[in-house]
């Protein structure tokens, strides 16, 4: 299921022709995916936001300048830019650490989570407890626990608990669907 309507090649052509709305469309189309890619590597939201901005600035510049060799592979092109910037970010951080090597290893206290963060965290935890309590058996709860907390491999879990890969997938899939449903219903509750 593609995010946007225009074909990638069409989008590239329109941007090259100077159509401003096509640039907005590109950002809108790839925004969520690029955020996920960057967020997967960068936990710091401020750093992730900087890399995100730079990724789209660079992507648009390159598209405008005709540097996209395969316009039909625009998605891969944008992903490549995001990944390169994440790597560059880590290289910069490593250089900074090397420069300050030998200085006293002073650490500063991390900021406490805000009340909103705390509230969201508690809300998510409540949701997860509901999902876990609704699972039909202790074995299914154990699957989720081992998969999400212990980070055990699927194969190991299946072997240890004597379940099939299909059963495993079903438990994980049902848990995700239930989690989403409860999450959405809570959102609806707030609106009313």
């Amino acid at each position, binding site marked *: 299921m593609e995010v946007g309507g225009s074909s990638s090649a069409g989008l590239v052509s329109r941007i090259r022709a100077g159509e401003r709305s096509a640039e907005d469309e590109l950002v809108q*189309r790839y925004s969520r995916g*690029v955020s996920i*890619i960057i967020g997967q590597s960068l936990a710091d939201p401020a750093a992730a936001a900087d890399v995100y901005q730079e990724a789209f600035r660079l992507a648009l510049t390159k598209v405008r300048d005709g540097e996209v060799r395969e316009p039909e592979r625009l998605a891969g092109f944008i992903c490549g830019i995001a990944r390169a910037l994440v790597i560059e970010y880590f290289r910069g951080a490593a250089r900074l650490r090397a420069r300050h090597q030998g200085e006293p290893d002073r650490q500063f*206290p991390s900021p406490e989570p805000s009340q909103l963060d705390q509230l969201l965290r508690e809300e998510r935890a409540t949701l997860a407890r509901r999902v876990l309590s609704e699972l039909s058996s202790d074995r299914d709860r*154990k699957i989720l*626990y081992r998969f999400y907390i212990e980070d055990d491999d699927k194969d190991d879990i299946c072997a240890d608990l004597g379940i099939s890969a299909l059963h495993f997938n079903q438990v994980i899939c049902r848990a*995700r669907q239930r989690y989403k449903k409860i999450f959405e219903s809570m959102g609806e509750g707030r609106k009313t």
Partner: protein
Amino acid sequence: MDHLRIEERNLIDRYVRGTMPAAERVEFEDHFVDCAECQEQIEIAKSLRQAVRESVTEQVREPRRRFGWRWVAVAASAGLLMAVAAGTAFLLQRDRARSDLASVRLSLERAPVVFGLSLSRDAAEPRDISIPSEPRWMVFLAEIDATRYSRYRAVVISSRGDEIWKQDGIQPNSPDSISVAIPSGALHPGTYTLTVSGAQPDGAFIPVARFPLRLAAGK
């Protein structure tokens, strides 16, 4: 990349867990950056994973708030450190968990495993430690000069520099030790450093001890 393959190979969860080989990750990212369905599945998987972890943390935090480090301090002051060296574990209060999350109950019901970390013995060579195969608290009794600060911070850092665990506001058990309790689920096989820092009045932290650890999966 088709969605049947994504489901069969469990790509969503493997991506969220960061266990994909680089080439497969690149291929999957190139797909989902333009796929609303996969993006949604990734976000749900990520959120659920975080939520399950937080639900455990929330539940574990509550009993620890009530009992704090008292049971560790009492045990230490009662001379049980000798027993620690011999591998004897303490009994942990068990009936405080508020919900029926089976895994959390397990980690609370089982006695914690305690490891003594001595500066003289452990400073250079990593201390070999087995991670319990079932969820348990792992209590590290770190031998330090605990008279210099009233509060300490403990941080576990992986060999790649990732912060795995952090706890602030730790009070000493005695003039020469502090206890750092970590749920076994937070640790995985690998080489780590447990750094203990003292909290200065201005909020800065001064490292006072480092304990290299080599963790292996227990039987």
